[in-house]
């Protein structure tokens, strides 16, 4: 093995260059955020925290932060919880398990754009699927604007995300539950534990790694969510469904305010780093061969 190490190094060159470019781009993003840019022209003037101060003093930014928090809470909690309980149900079922989890996982293979086109139609107040079904069973839908109302639009969008990602949580939990020693669960049942106790006192503490994977991955998804917003509402009504990635795009490509766009992306970077770095350190333990 030793003799071939130089060749091994050669195999690494492409990825090292790629990783180098990637981190170089992150540094570059900082440079842009702290200097004055006009479109694609650098002016190389150091402006310090000017863009950040402008960003933090705009109400729009804080509306975005609030919306990101809504995603964080109302997307992650239901997805993780329902995914976990569903995995336990499926595991107990024994038969038809495979076809069932494939139904739930299926939306994961679709693009957010397809999900967005589909759900925008379902939520359409006058001719969408949901209101037409409700009308068919006699519900008065004149007040149900779903995605058209500022108060409910973002939650409607989160439900579409929930629909798409439930299968992901389900599959991760299903794998983890299968890893739990059978005797442990049986022993609890023999002791007269209810299913509820088994679920939350015996199984949940033993699938901690699955919970970590799910929450982290879903949390990262919430700071990436862009396609759904673009295709379903374009951030509207008003800015009620805008999230940071969408704001970043708007500022950069529509307002041509590159400095502000870069400042927003630095905020996104900071938020993702909080999740990605600890997760990577944790995941690394599995990688390192002693």
């Amino acid at each position, binding site marked *: *093995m030793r003799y*071939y190490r130089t060749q*091994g190094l050669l195999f690494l060159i492409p*990825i090292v260059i790629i*990783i180098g470019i990637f981190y170089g781009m992150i540094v570059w993003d900082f440079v842009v955020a702290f200097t004055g840019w006009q479109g694609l022209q650098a002016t190389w003037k150091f402006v310090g925290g000017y863009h950040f101060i402008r960003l933090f003093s705009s109400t729009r930014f804080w509306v975005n932060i609030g919306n990101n928090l809504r995603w964080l809470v109302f997307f992650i909690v239901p997805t993780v919880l329902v995914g976990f309980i569903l995995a336990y149900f499926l595991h107990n079922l024994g038969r038809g398990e495979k076809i069932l989890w494939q139904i739930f996982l299926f939306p994961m*293979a679709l693009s957010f*754009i397809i999900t967005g*086109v589909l759900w925008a139609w379902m939520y359409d107040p006058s001719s969408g699927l949901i209101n037409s079904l409700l009308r068919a069973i006699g519900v008065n839908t004149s007040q149900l604007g779903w995605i058209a109302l500022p108060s409910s639009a973002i939650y409607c969008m989160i439900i579409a995300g929930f629909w798409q990602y439930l299968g992901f949580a389900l599959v991760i939990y299903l794998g983890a539950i299968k890893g739990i020693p059978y005797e442990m669960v049986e022993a609890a049942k023999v002791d007269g534990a209810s299913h509820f106790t088994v679920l939350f006192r015996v199984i949940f503490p033993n699938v901690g790694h699955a919970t970590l994977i799910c929450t982290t991955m879903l949390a990262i998804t919430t700071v990436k969510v862009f*396609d759904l917003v673009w295709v379903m509402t374009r951030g509207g009504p008003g800015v009620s469904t805008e999230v940071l990635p969408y704001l970043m*795009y708007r500022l950069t490509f529509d307002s041509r305010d590159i400095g502000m766009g870069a400042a927003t992306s630095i905020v996104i970077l900071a938020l993702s780093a909080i999740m990605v770095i600890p997760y990577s350190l944790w995941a690394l333990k599995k990688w390192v061969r002693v």
Partner: protein
Amino acid sequence: MKERNFVLISGLVVVLLAVVWMIPIYALVTTSLKTQQEVALQKYLVPPERPQFSNFIKAFQALKIGLRNSVVITLTATFVSVVVGSLAGYALTSFQFRFATLLFFFIVVVTFLPYHVVLIPITHILKFLNLLNTYAGLVLIYTILNAPMATLITGTFFMKVPPELEEAAMLDGCKPFLFYLRVLLPVSLPGIVSATILVFVQIYNEFLLGIALTRGPDVKPVMPFLAELKGTQIAQWHIQMAGAVITSIIPVIVFVFLGKFFISGLMAGYGKG
């Protein structure tokens, strides 16, 4: 008895929920096959009287350039990403470099960072290289963004290959590259397929770079075309849904026929080695 009741009730809950999960897909497909008059009746759960394949022709006309672009870009970038990634995965798992752990850490981190973090620099690089609005530019960027994930997934699979296999091959005079090509790739074929599928689906489904790095239809991938179709065919639900069906055909085929690898790729990619 109590146990049987529980299985019955939980089974019922799961099946009901599965039905709810399928309704959007069902409505998507049936609506894509209806006439505009049928759609206007809003009886979305009723199957179409006579399937209207002309909807698909109309949607396909609007999407075909995007489909062509997506196929070209996605296949090329996936191929390069998996080659680069699997070579790196091999080197990192086999040679016990001292810096391997650190490099792995850097790779894992960038795998999960949002593209927005590097979006502005990407436009600057492509502008500098004069590659904005070209296939080459998009392939280059997609490769940079996806090779780390390919490394992660293939590396996870390579780690399961017993080291004795490599030692035996080396004793027989097999050079590392030949070992990679003739032994490692065939032995870890499931891993290669998983990485390929995951990278492929990710690039094909991508939207942000598709709109940010292209102007006009020439090299624009299909997802931006679908988003535009929604904008131009307002309330033409049957056309919109036909477009959604067309664009989802490729990922659906992958999912139905190679679903097993899709799952194992997800597992490997998200740190469950």
